[in-house]
C-alpha cells in the first residue's frame, strides 16, 4: 500500500517536473540561443554597458561563435531533421555548451539557472531522440 502510494507520488513528481522536450521546446531553446548569441556578439555592451561589465565573466565573442553554430544547427534540425542522428548530435553538443556556460556564470544565479534550464531541455531532447532513433531503426 505504502509502496504503491510512493510509486504514484514519484510518477506525479516526474510527470510534473520532468524537463520538456519536443519540437516546441526545441524552438524555445533556438530562440533563446539566438538572443544569447546576439547579446554575446555585442548587443549587451551597446544596450546595457553597466550590466555587461558585471556579468562578462568569460570572453563574449567565443560564446558568440559557439552560439551562432548552435543556433544554425538547431534551426536546421528544427522539424524533419529533428529525429535524426544530426538532431541527436545537435542536442548533445548544445547541452554540453549550455553546461559550460552555466558553469562559467554560476556566481550570477538567475543567468546560471536560465542556461541550466536550456541544458536540461537539450538533455531531455537528446534522450528522447535517441530513443526514437532506436525504436525506428
Amino acid at each position, binding site marked *: 500500500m505504502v509502496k504503491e502510494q510512493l510509486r504514484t507520488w514519484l510518477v506525479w513528481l516526474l510527470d510534473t517536473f520532468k524537463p520538456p522536450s519536443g519540437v516546441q521546446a526545441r524552438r524555445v531553446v533556438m530562440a533563446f540561443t539566438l538572443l544569447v548569441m546576439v547579446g554575446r556578439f555585442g548587443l549587451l555592451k551597446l544596450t546595457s554597458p553597466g550590466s555587461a561589465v558585471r556579468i562578462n565573466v568569460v570572453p563574449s565573442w567565443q560564446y558568440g561563435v559557439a552560439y551562432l553554430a548552435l543556433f544554425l544547427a538547431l534551426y536546421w534540425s528544427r522539424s524533419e531533421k529533428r529525429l535524426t542522428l544530426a538532431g541527436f548530435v545537435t542536442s548533445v553538443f548544445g547541452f*554540453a555548451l549550455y553546461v*559550460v556556460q552555466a558553469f*562559467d556564470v554560476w556566481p550570477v544565479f538567475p543567468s546560471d539557472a536560465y542556461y541550466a534550464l536550456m541544458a536540461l531541455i537539450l538533455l531531455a531532447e537528446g534522450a528522447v531522440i*535517441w530513443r526514437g532513433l532506436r525504436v525506428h531503426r
Partner: protein
Amino acid sequence: MFTADNIALFIIAVAVALAVAVLYDRLHARTIDYRETHLEAEVKDLRRTIDDQEKRLSNQQNEIAVLHRLLGEAQLQINYLQTEVTFYKRRADELEARLLAAGNQKKQPE
C-alpha cells in the same frame, strides 16, 4: 571559454548526455513495446469501425433508394386520386345543375 576546465567540462557533459540517452532508452524499452502494441490494437479497432460504418452507410443508401421509389409511386397515386376527385366534383356539379333545372320546370304553371 577555451580553458582546460571548460574543455574538460564540455567532454564530461557530452558523456553525461550520451549516458542519460542510453539509460532513458533502456528504462523505457518496455513502455515503447506496450505503447506500440496498444497503438496497433487501436488502429485495428478503428479500421473495424470504419468497415462497419461503410457497411451501414451502404445499407442506408439502399434504404434511401427504396424510399425514393416508394415516394415516386405514392406521388403517382396522389396525382391519380386528385384527378378522380376533380372528375367526381365536376360530375356532382353537373348533376346538381340538372336537378335544379328539373325542379324549376315542374314549378312553372302550364
